[in-house]
């Protein structure tokens, strides 16, 4: 019986689930779209971390990227809301049961244009939430207009040449007090997966700016959001691996070869040094790095900034252990005798 299950559903993880249990509806995005690759890594990361799908809540705004939560974690609750308004919807919803894990997928239009305000404010509040931006520099569903992350000089068929300076989402996140900022590339699935795992362990807002090429509208070799450009210009800050809580770091590293960031839940992120010496806990260094990367046309990938000390949104509220959405009516309505006290607090005739 067990063998049969294994044959049809694949290997079970510690949650008793097969990888297929983490899938969603079939994707309706274009073949080769970077977003599908990211969805696959969300599925893989959740499966490998033995997460119960019921403990995850998914969110999105509007756009190609925002369709994708329907295509992963089909057994998780989800809300595909309004264009640019994912952060507020998620903030309110996570108060419903603050022990759940929130994961949101947005796009560059959804975050850097219409949703810039809410993006900035979800970071200020440090909501424990994995905020993925599938960044392709273009509006897909409306057929290929420039987005706010498109580089000046980019020429797109039927839309001429982009005139304006781009928004750098990772930079906005670092200066916006985000406590976990990473950039990655959909063409580097291993790194995407490790970053998602690390972000799921972060007790605060984790912004993942993932360059995710649009194969239909913005994938020419010279476009800064294309697969070819990404492959040619990716500069990985480190080789990143996520080590779950209670698991030992097995590989021996030379002194000074790795940085080990311990997370709130006891897990750690092991950053193996590549050619750059980079400490992601230093914010001014992170800003300088992004500036340098923009100047030198590098697609910097990896963990750009992390602060595990900043209190999360739920640390600053005095919430009960019982989720607010499981309180009994008797815990929600003051007792009958209190009404007299309340009336006495008003000015009486």
């Amino acid at each position, binding site marked *: 019986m067990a063998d049969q299950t294994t044959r049809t559903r694949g290997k079970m993880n510690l949650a008793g689930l097969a990888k297929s249990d983490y899938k969603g*509806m079939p994707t309706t995005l274009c073949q080769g779209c970077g977003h599908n690759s990211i969805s696959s890594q969300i599925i893989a990361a959740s499966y490998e971390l033995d997460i*119960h*799908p*019921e403990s995850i*809540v*998914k969110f999105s705004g509007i756009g190609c990227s925002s369709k994708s*939560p*329907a295509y992963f974690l*089909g*057994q*998780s*609750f*989800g*809300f*595909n*809301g*309004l264009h640019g*308004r994912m*952060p*507020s*919807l*998620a*903030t*309110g*919803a*996570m*108060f*419903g*049961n603050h*022990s*759940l894990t929130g994961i949101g997928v947005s796009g560059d239009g959804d975050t850097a244009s219409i949703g810039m*305000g*809410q993006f*900035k*404010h979800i970071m200020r*509040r440090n909501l424990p939430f994995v905020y993925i931006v599938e960044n392709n520099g273009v509006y897909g569903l409306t057929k290929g207009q420039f987005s706010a992350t498109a580089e000046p000089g980019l020429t797109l068929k039927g839309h001429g040449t982009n005139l304006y300076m781009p928004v750098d989402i990772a930079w906005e996140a670092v200066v916006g007090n985000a406590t976990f900022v990473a950039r990655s590339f959909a063409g580097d699935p291993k790194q995407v997966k490790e970053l998602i795992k690390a972000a799921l362990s972060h007790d605060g807002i984790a912004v993942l700016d993932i360059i995710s090429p649009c194969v239909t509208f913005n994938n020419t070799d010279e476009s800064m959001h294309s697969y070819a450009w990404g492959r040619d210009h990716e500069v990985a800050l480190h080789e990143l691996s996520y080590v779950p809580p209670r698991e030992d770091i097995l590989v021996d590293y030379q002194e000074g070869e790795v940085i080990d960031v311990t997370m709130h839940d006891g897990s750690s992120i092991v950053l193996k040094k590549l050619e750059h010496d980079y400490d992601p806990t230093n914010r001014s260094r992170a800003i300088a790095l992004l500036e340098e990367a923009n100047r030198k046309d590098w697609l910097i990938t990896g963990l750009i900034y992390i602060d595990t000390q900043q209190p999360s949104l739920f640390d600053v*509220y*005095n*919430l*009960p*252990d019982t*989720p*607010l*959405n*499981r*309180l009994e*009516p008797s*815990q*929600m*309505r*003051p007792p*009958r005798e*209190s*009404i007299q006290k*309340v*009336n006495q607090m*008003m*000015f*009486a*005739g």
Partner: protein
Amino acid sequence: MSAVQTKVMPTPPTKVGSIVNDFSITVGTSNGSGSQTSNLTILRSLFKMGIPVSGKNLFPSNIQGLPTWYTIRVSKDGFLARREEHEIVVAMNPDSFAQDLADVIPGGVLFYADDIKIPVSREDVIAYPMPIKQLVKASDAPSGLKNYIANMVYVGVLAQNLGIDLDMIHQALEFHFKGNQKPIDLNFGVVQSAAAWAEDNLEKRDPYQVERMDATSDFIMTDGNTAAALGSVYGGVNFAAWYPITPATSLVEELEEYLPMLRKDAETGKDTYAVVQAEDELAAIGMAIGAGWAGLRAMTSTSGPGLSLMTEFAGLAYYSEVPIVVWDVQRVGPSTGLPTRTSQGDLSMVYFLGHGDTQNVILLPGSVNECFEFGWRAFDLAERLQWPVYVLSDLDLGMNQWMTEPFEYPDEPIDRGKVLWEQDIEKLSGKWGRYQDVDGDGIPYRTVPGNRHPASAWFARGTGHNEFAIYTEDGGEYERNMARLSRKFDTARTFVPKPITDTMDGTDIGIIAYGSTEPAVQEARHHLAKAGLKTDFLRLRAIPFTKEVTEFIYSHERSYVIELNRDGQLHQLLSLEYAPVCAKLTSVAHLDGLSITARFIVDRIWQDEEKK
């Protein structure tokens, strides 16, 4: 008609002490001068003397310096609507002196700060100068506070002149300063010395007088925003997100005042609620919808401009069927309009709020007490219907002090509506559809995040969806779902609070009104009846319209629809709903940003009736 006019505005006789407990006092000061404390003290001390009173604050959109007025109506008959006549005017502000003087009725009284060097140019007004600066100088107040206590001088002078009991003033100050002895003593000291000065120096020449009554002992005095906040506390609010906007701001501020007092878990000391100040109204309603979807009793409060911003989210909540409570404390629009004036101008917008086909459920509290009741009831309705419920208050109701019946503990248990938890899904063997109309009332079943049953999850969306919340662009599915929402609106008709009717024998003329206009309507009906025109009254308390509204309209020859806006928005909505008989309905709409008066209503109805 002339008989009625006389009743509404009698010419005051001049005999000293001949008009008891039946006049209005208007105080003109400058904004930010601390006059609110003085005015509330007068209002509360009269209330404490057992006399029916109301207070209306007419204030500019400004922090400091512009003219502001406060009108107190004293009415032995219990008529507490605004009046257009000012018997007693207190002029403290040189900038508004000319207008203040002009506002006094012939034979009325003007109290004025004697440092205002503008001559009192009217002979038909009894004028009393008050040596404000001199009395303030003589007080032992620290110099930084002298400007603030200047306004206490007129409290003392009025008390002496009208016969307001100083003990009651002391009680009002005790309440205002929450028992803090220092400011109580300081302010009361000024009141006493001003009263003593008036006793020695002002010979009373006017007819106005107050006398103790016993008409307020069963009442409390507070404002609608406080009541709404308290009602929400008793309604079990778990989550409130908001953005500051006049005149709704104090609603959530009061929530933050009372929640820590009333809603900490007795065992754990933890909060059973969370309040978030959002970055704007879009985020405020977005958070509330997220929370409502996740199974919390969630609310936001705003006013017209905020609601305009919330519109897209309102449509999402309507279509994805998320329960939330939205308080709209209305002010004058369009645009920024008159942000510190009252209105009922959002009714049409709220009814249709959202693009495409929407019809929203609206509650219309008509008193401070009802703001409390609808505060808790709105959550039951929202969760039962799985929809936003909009509660339309207004600046007059929300921010002014009203005498009102004490709050009553909710007489119905909390109703969370159709929510399925793990064991419910188990019983259904995991087979259920988020948008299936199982019971035929248009209301489906829902689950909320955190439900651990593997078959509990569903994907909420503003996009087209079928009965299982799966994306679809199928026209038939879309139409069936929208038809179900329409059915749900019909179900709401049977859930919402019924109107309250007040009838007189033998009339076929009706009046329909809602919200803060009731006191003026009732006063107008009194005067109309005295002049021979009886009317029945239906006070609407909710939309959709219930069968009682239908019966009222059909059973009356004609009905006047009274409201505070330009276009007669309720009249329009009723005309749509009751198109075959809409000729029975006549709009009486009042626009100027002040609350409606009985006189306005009487005049308009008489004008119309004379044509019949």
